[in-house]
Each structure stands twice: as structure tokens, then as C-alpha cells.
């Protein structure tokens, strides 16, 4: 542990409490990334567990799937809400699009781990190649999410007839299309609020991730890490990117499956 201590004039025999030890055997940057991710795990966990609590406080839709109509009286079934795919208007394809999004994000996590592996070998060409693929995966995922949001906001052709209290504090009954923070055609207002808040916060993380990926990609390509002598930055950004994937795995289960 302290055998390779770099402090000048310090005996290697000073023991555990003498300072200069590295009990966690990781660099400062990597440790701080892990502790940041731990705090972010708590943030996302708080969101997702609150989602679960609000969800169980509403009755679930229990009727048959083909007669489903959106109502703010009960929580909708996700596979009846998220059933649209770009370019296939009017075709009922439950969870297909979100399945594609999940696949894209998991794939970009795989290319990221390949970039980290190439970084361990100081192989600049491989790092650059895999970082580029990871970045493309991230951008594609964001584009998919933009479509998903825009479809969610604009809604279906038919909409749903709802009675609700509008922003002028009046009770109205009308056909509602799509979703906003006051009312949505799918379920209780909290359904769309939580959808926007949680997938939005996750999408924000992905956006930051893509920026970081680009910086690391650029620095690797111009040889900054070669001159620095190690590719640890790729590892740290990799940790963040895998975390984004990890959160999506939970968002996917809680929002789209349960």
C-alpha cells in the first residue's frame, strides 16, 4: 500500500495512520466520480420510488386492453400509452419504440466499455473508434427521446374526454389531446408530470454525457491522453455513461413495463 508512496522523505514503515496511504487504491478523479454517482443514484432512486408511491395511490386500469380509454380516474397501462413508432402512424405497436431505444442505449454502453478496454491498452485508434460509436449511440437515443416526447405531448388522433380543473381554476369537460403539466389524455395529471420530470432528468444526464463523450473523443483523437501517459479520463467518463444506462434500465422497468 504505502510501499510505492511518492511523498519525499517519508518512510515506508510509518503504518496505516501515517498518511500517504491509498486504502481505496483508486485515483482522486475516479473516487470522486464514484461518490458523485452514488449521490446521483439517490436522486434518481428518490424520483423513481416517488413514482411508485404516487402510482399505487391511484387505482390501476383493470379492464380489457382493447377497450382502454384514457381517464384521470385511474392510472393507464403503459403498453397502451407508449405504442407509436415513427413513420408507422396509426399502427398499434406497444413498447416497440421504447424497446429500440433501450437497445440503442445498451449498445452504446457496450461500445463504451470497449473504449475503456482500448484505453487500458493505450490503443488510440481503438479508443477513438469506440468513442465515436458511443457518441453516435447517445445522440440517436436523444433523438428517439425527442420524438417520444413530441408524440406524448401532441397525443393521439382521438384524444380522451376528461373532466378536470383547468389552469383558470374552472371545472371543464372536453376532449383532451396529448399532455401538459395540467392535464393529459392518458391518465391522472401526475402521470404526465412524472413522465416529463423523470425521463427529462434522465435525458438531461444523457445530454451532459454526450458532451463529455465528445470532449474525451476529441482529446483522445488529438493525442492529449498519449502525452499525459494514461487514458484514465476515458474510464471516468465511461463510469458516468454506464450510470446513465443503469438509470435507464430502471426507468424502463418502472415506466414502461409495470
Amino acid at each position, binding site marked *: 500500500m504505502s510501499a510505492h508512496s511518492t511523498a519525499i522523505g517519508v518512510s515506508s514503515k510509518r503504518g496505516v495512520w501515517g498518511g500517504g496511504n491509498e486504502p481505496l487504491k483508486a485515483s482522486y478523479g475516479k473516487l470522486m466520480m464514484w461518490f458523485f454517482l452514488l449521490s446521483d443514484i439517490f436522486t434518481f*432512486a*428518490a424520483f423513481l420510488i416517488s413514482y411508485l*408511491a404516487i402510482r399505487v395511490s391511484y387505482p390501476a386500469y383493470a379492464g380489457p386492453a382493447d377497450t382502454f380509454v384514457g381517464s384521470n380516474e385511474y392510472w393507464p397501462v403503459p403498453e397502451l400509452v407508449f405504442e407509436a413508432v415513427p413513420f408507422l402512424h396509426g399502427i398499434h405497436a406497444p413498447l416497440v419504440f421504447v424497446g429500440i431505444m433501450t437497445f440503442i442505449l445498451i449498445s452504446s454502453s457496450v461500445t463504451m466499455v470497449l473504449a475503456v478496454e482500448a484505453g487500458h*491498452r493505450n490503443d488510440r485508434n481503438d479508443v477513438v473508434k469506440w468513442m465515436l460509436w458511443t457518441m453516435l449511440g447517445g445522440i440517436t437515443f436523444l433523438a428517439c427521446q425527442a420524438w417520444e416526447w413530441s408524440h406524448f405531448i401532441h397525443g393521439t388522433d382521438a384524444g380522451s374526454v376528461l373532466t378536470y380543473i383547468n389552469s383558470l381554476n374552472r371545472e371543464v369537460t372536453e376532449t383532451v389531446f396529448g399532455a401538459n403539466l395540467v392535464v393529459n389524455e392518458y391518465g391522472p395529471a401526475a402521470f404526465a408530470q412524472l413522465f416529463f420530470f423523470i425521463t427529462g432528468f434522465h435525458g438531461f444526464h444523457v445530454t451532459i454525457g454526450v458532451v463529455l463523450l465528445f470532449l474525451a473523443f476529441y482529446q483522445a483523437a488529438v*493525442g492529449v491522453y*498519449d502525452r499525459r501517459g494514461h487514458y484514465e479520463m476515458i474510464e471516468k467518463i465511461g463510469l458516468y455513461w*454506464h450510470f446513465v444506462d*443503469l438509470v435507464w*434500465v430502471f426507468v424502463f422497468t418502472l415506466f414502461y*413495463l409495470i
Partner: protein
Amino acid sequence: MEIQDTKSTLEVTPRNNDKIKKIWKTAGILLALTVAEFIMAFTMDRGILLYVLFILLTVWKAKYIMMEFMHLGDEAKPLFYSIIVPLIFLVWLLIALAKEGTDIFLMRW
């Protein structure tokens, strides 16, 4: 401006195919678990059993991502435990808010 020498002075080690194979294997497992979730979503009845299975599969996937992709298992034990042990608090949050949610449900309906 002086042109910088961008040629690597670091020694490049050749690819270790075993490691790369392991990465793809993990990717395959993650994909298989996701496909299993999909099949279950369309073939099983909605209910507590299905939800518990979904959450177990998700935690299983999370374990693969953290251990294989983030290499948490390869870190020093104190680091490993300082990340994993605090997550125990989430168990309590889950129990407390699930109870809260069901109680609100009973009061409302």
C-alpha cells in the same frame, strides 16, 4: 506555432480477445434479460407476481452493468462497500413510500 508531435510514446498492447469476448457475453446477457422482460410483458397477467419478477430482472441487469461494465467488482473492497452499503437506505425508502402510497389509495377510494 510549433507543430506538436502527436505520435504515441506509449506502448500499445495488443487486444486481449478473452476480455473482449467477456464484454460481448455480458452484452448478450443484458439483451437476453431485456427480451425476457418483453415476452413477460405480453404473455403474463398483470399483477404482483409479474411486477416482482420485473424488479428482480432489473436488479439483475443492474448488477451486470455495475460489476462487468463499471468494474466495481474489481475495485478495492472498501471502495466496493462504500458504494454498495449506503444503498441499504433505499430499501427503507421503498418500504416507507409503498406503505404511504397504499394508505393514500385507501383514503381516496
